Structure formats: structure tokens, C-alpha cells
């Protein structure tokens, strides 16, 4: 082959390839911009460009970058045809980068955009997308603190009627009438458990009434520390009512610390003593329904209360009254008059009110096509 022929072939091939590129009207990616990625630690730069028209024949993009004064290098792999952004998280902090977006066709023809202005990655001290969250947090904290302060300064805080609590008198009355005892089960919680504390507060109130009525009060415990606290508590209730003589320490006793054996032990007490009223208040696990079932079978009036969500259905189905979750805390706040409980309860109610308002307002706004509230609540990466 002569040199001329070779030149001709090379020339033809070149023409052809350039020709294909031009015949498809391959335009360089437009409006290419590189910016420091917002709300990050400064380890990335975001590159954006306009989407090419659908018939452009572009099959993908490549990102090229260079630190001022050095050569071009490719970053990342081939990006799919539809993409319009790329986050380069392989940058070196403090260096300024210049980017080029290169469009690639199926025939491997390429066309490059203009260079962007140099850009550095910088870290932000505050995540701007989290402003609503930040204010939400501050406002809720303020609501809690305000109400705590209010409660501490002796302001009366109203707590609504709680049906399960009102049934206590009914249950005690019945036990007294029948001349039977009352059984109080505190569950398997430890002494620092919120529900156990709540349960002990309710027990304190129950003990005051039993002191008055001279009804025997049985409290089988499964935790030695709880046992000691409960003994002290019941004793002081009897003292407050002026009936220290009616207090019988042996009625508050340690049964066992293992789950099912405890339930079996309580069952035995129920069947032997046939208490007229049974209180199941505190933290319960799977043993809940064993006790509730036996209590039901001896015909006792049963008042349950727990924040163990999984046991609530069984209590509701098998007991006469049930304090559901937060109701137990509200009952404690109401009975103990502890400003900390009362104040938080009120503060949380304010929180619910705000959520309530956000939902009602949000529904109206969304239906009229205004997205203010959802924009506020949406998570920003």
C-alpha cells in the first residue's frame, strides 16, 4: 500500500468519525457549574449540568478535573445518560479544582464542556437544612422547662379524669364488703423503671385506703430492692392514715425472681386467697396473660396498667380496667403531685397540640396545593 493510500484511509476514517459526531449534532454539556457541596464536612464538590435533549445520542458522561496548574484526570466511572449531577467526594481539602464534563456517544465520540471556575471544598459549621429541626427542638425544650417552672412554683396543673384510677375505690369497696384481700402485683420491673415507680405511687394511694378499710393488702415482689422500697412506702401510708397497727410486713414478701415461676407463684396466691381485687401495675412481659387469666377465673375485679405495649392487648381483653401507656404516667403525676411529672405532662400536651395544629393546617394547605408544612418537615440530606 502506498503512502498516499494510507493517508487517504486515515483521512477518511477521521472524516467519518467527526462526521458522525457532527451529523448527530453532538453539543457539549451546557451550563456546567461546580460548587462546594452544601451542608457537608468539606470533603466533596458537586458538579451540575443541563440535561441533554433526548435525541442527542449521548450514552453517558465522564467527569474530568484538575487542580490549578496540573493535568486533567478522570474521576468516577462512566455516568449514565440521564444524569445531571455528580458529587466528587475524592477531593483533597483546601485545593481548588476545575471541572470538565465530557459527553460520550455510543460510537465513542466525545465532546467536552468548557472548564468551570475553580472551586474549593469547605466544611460548614451549621447544617442549614436542619434549621426547622433545630427550632423544633428549642421550642419543645422551652415548653417543657416553662411548664416545669410553672409546676414548681405551685401552680395548679389539671389532669383529666382517668377511668382506671376511679375504679380503685370501687374495687376496694368490693373487697371490704366481701371481707377478702387485695392483691397488688408490681410486675417484673426494677426499682429505677418508670412504670415501676408509677406502680409504687399508685400502690401508696391504694395502701392509704386499705389502711382505712382494714383490708389485707398482699404484695408479692420479685426484686429484693423493690421489696424494700415497697415495704417502706406502704408502712408510711399506714402511718399517715394513723393506722400503723394495721400494717403487716409479712403481707409484702419476696416470691422469686424468675419470670414464669413468679407468675406461677402469683397464680397460687390467687387461687388460695381468692382476692376480691387484683392490681397489675408496672412493667410486664410475656407472663402478663398467665396472671390476668387466673385473676379473671376467680372472678376478681382486675385493674391493670402498663407501658409495655405488647402486653396491653391481653390486659384489655382480660381485665376490667386498664391504664394504657401514658395514662399510667398521667396517673402517677396526678397522684404524686410531683412537679417534675406534672410539668412534663403538660409540656408534652403542648407538643401534641402543635402536632395536632400542624396536621389540620397541613391538610388544608396541601389540599390547596401549598406545601409549606411538608417542606418544613421534610428531611434534607
Amino acid at each position, binding site marked *: 500500500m502506498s503512502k498516499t493510500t494510507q493517508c487517504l484511509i486515515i483521512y477518511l476514517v477521521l472524516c467519518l468519525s467527526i462526521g458522525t459526531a457532527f451529523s448527530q449534532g453532538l453539543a457539549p454539556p451546557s451550563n456546567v457549574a461546580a460548587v462546594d457541596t452544601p451542608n457537608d464536612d468539606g470533603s466533596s464538590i458537586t458538579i451540575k449540568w443541563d440535561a441533554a435533549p433526548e435525541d442527542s445520542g449521548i450514552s453517558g458522561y465522564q467527569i474530568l478535573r484538575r487542580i490549578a496548574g496540573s493535568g486533567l484526570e478522570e474521576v468516577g466511572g462512566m455516568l449514565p445518560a440521564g444524569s445531571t449531577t455528580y458529587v466528587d467526594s475524592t477531593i483533597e481539602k483546601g485545593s481548588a479544582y476545575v471541572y470538565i464534563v465530557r459527553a460520550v456517544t455510543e460510537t465513542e465520540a466525545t465532546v467536552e464542556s468548557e472548564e468551570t471556575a475553580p472551586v474549593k471544598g469547605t466544611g460548614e459549621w451549621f447544617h442549614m437544612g436542619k434549621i426547622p429541626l433545630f427550632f423544633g427542638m428549642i421550642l419543645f425544650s422551652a415548653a417543657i422547662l416553662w411548664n416545669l417552672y410553672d409546676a414548681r412554683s405551685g401552680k395548679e396543673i389539671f389532669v383529666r379524669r382517668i377511668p382506671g384510677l376511679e375504679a380503685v375505690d370501687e374495687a376496694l369497696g368490693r373487697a371490704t364488703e366481701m371481707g377478702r384481700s387485695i392483691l397488688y402485683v408490681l410486675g417484673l420491673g426494677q426499682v429505677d423503671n418508670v412504670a415501676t415507680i408509677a406502680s409504687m405511687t399508685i400502690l401508696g394511694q391504694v395502701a392509704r385506703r386499705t389502711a382505712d378499710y382494714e383490708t389485707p393488702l398482699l404484695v408479692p415482689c420479685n426484686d429484693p430492692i423493690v421489696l424494700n422500697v415497697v415495704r417502706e412506702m406502704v408502712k408510711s401510708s399506714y402511718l399517715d392514715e394513723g393506722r400503723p397497727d394495721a400494717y403487716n410486713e409479712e403481707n409484702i414478701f419476696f416470691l422469686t425472681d424468675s419470670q414464669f415461676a413468679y407468675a406461677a407463684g402469683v397464680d397460687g396466691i390467687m387461687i388460695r386467697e381468692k382476692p376480691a381485687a387484683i392490681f397489675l401495675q408496672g412493667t410486664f412481659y410475656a407472663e402478663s396473660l398467665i396472671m390476668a387469666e387466673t385473676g379473671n377465673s376467680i372472678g376478681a375485679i382486675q385493674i391493670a396498667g402498663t407501658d409495655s405495649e405488647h402486653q*396491653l392487648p391481653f390486659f384489655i381483653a382480660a381485665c376490667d380496667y386498664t391504664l394504657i401507656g401514658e*395514662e399510667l404516667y398521667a396517673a402517677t403525676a396526678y397522684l404524686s403531685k410531683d412537679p417534675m411529672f406534672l410539668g412534663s405532662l403538660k409540656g408534652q400536651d403542648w407538643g401534641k397540640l402543635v402536632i395536632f395544629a400542624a396536621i389540620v393546617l397541613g*391538610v388544608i394547605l396541601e389540599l390547596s396545593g401549598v406545601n409549606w408544612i411538608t417542606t418544613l418537615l421534610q428531611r434534607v440530606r
Partner: protein
Amino acid sequence: MEVLGIWIAAFLTLCIFSFLYRDNPFYRFAEHLFIGLSVGYSIVVTIHQGFIPLAWEPLSEGVNALQSELTSEGTPETKEALSGLFKIIPIGIGLLFFARLSPRHTWLIRYPIAILIGFTAGAAIPNVLQASIFEQTYGTLTPFAAMHAGSLSTGDIVGAILITIGLICTLVYFFFSVEHQGPVGWLSKVGIAFLMIGFGAAFGNTVMGRVALLIHRVGFLINDWLGSIF
């Protein structure tokens, strides 16, 4: 060894099932053995998968690195391992848990507990607010945006409205600052109805879960144990 294992497992399984007849020494033996073994296993795993990799190894690597650094054989790797020495502070704080064993110094365990509790509380506040309050409220509202756009089927529209009503009424039920009378009383009644349906659903699913546990054990007794005999 394997056959022996199956027989022991079957025996212990039956010991525990014997509780169904009534509380008895076999059950109590098995139950207490189980408590002991499982606490023992937790100790073993916590030491081998907790203390050793998280505290002991980085520390001993740090000590070794310090030695080679002092004998001036320091390499970049030993410099990195030296940072393990800083872990002596959290390890020291963790060791304060042993103060539990001495009644006079028990108060010292408050230090590590305070750190763990503060950490948990601090992590909870923003994340729970975002995940459970912001996003759950957001999720209640998004169907209404779709409704405005007209992209929701009748069934979904009814569903979204019911969810909103149910949610609002449930919130009202757990609202304690107002007496539940009049309109508030009505809303809270609807709320309790929704709550009961929710609890009923949990009840039905729990039955499935508990039954599954039994089927699994009976499967073991029949297929693995009796299956190995016949």
C-alpha cells in the same frame, strides 16, 4: 456427641414443658440452669466480642508501639497505634463499674453511667424528633398533596382521610390537660376505638408469633429427636 446433644436438648425441652402440668423441680432445675448458662454465655461473648477488640487490643498495640517508639524504631504504623493509648481514659472510666463491688465506693459507678445516659439522651433528642415526629407527621400529609395533584385512587383517599382522623383522635385520647367532655369527649371516644383496633391487630399477630415458637419446638422434638430414634 451429636446424638448425646440431641438427647440432652430433648430432655431439657421436656423439663420445661413439664411446667404446663404444674411448677415442679424438673422445671425449676432447667430454668435455673438456663439462667446460669445464658449469663455465662453473655459474659464470654461480651469479653471476647467487647472488651478484647474494643479496649484490650488497641491498648496493648499502643503499649507495644510506645516501646518501639522509645527504642527509636518508630514507623508511621506505630505512630497510629500510639493513639490506642488515649483509650486508657474511657477504659479507666469503664473500670469504675467495679466500684459496684465495694459499698463505700459504689457512687463511683455514677461517672460511667452518667456518660452513657447523657450520650443516649443527646443522641435521642434530634433523631427521635426527626424520625418519629417530623417524618411521621410528614407521612400523614403527603397523601393530601397527591390528592391535590389528583393521582390518588378512591380507596387511597378514603384511607388517607381515615388515617388522619384516627391519628388526631388518638392524640386527643392521650391529651391530659383537658377534661374529655363535649366534642373533645367524642374525639377521644373515636380515638379509643382506633386504639382498640390497633391493639386487636397486635393481639392477632402476637398469637401467630407465639404459635410459631411452639411449632418450632414441636418440630424439634418430632423431627430431630424422635426422628433420630426411628
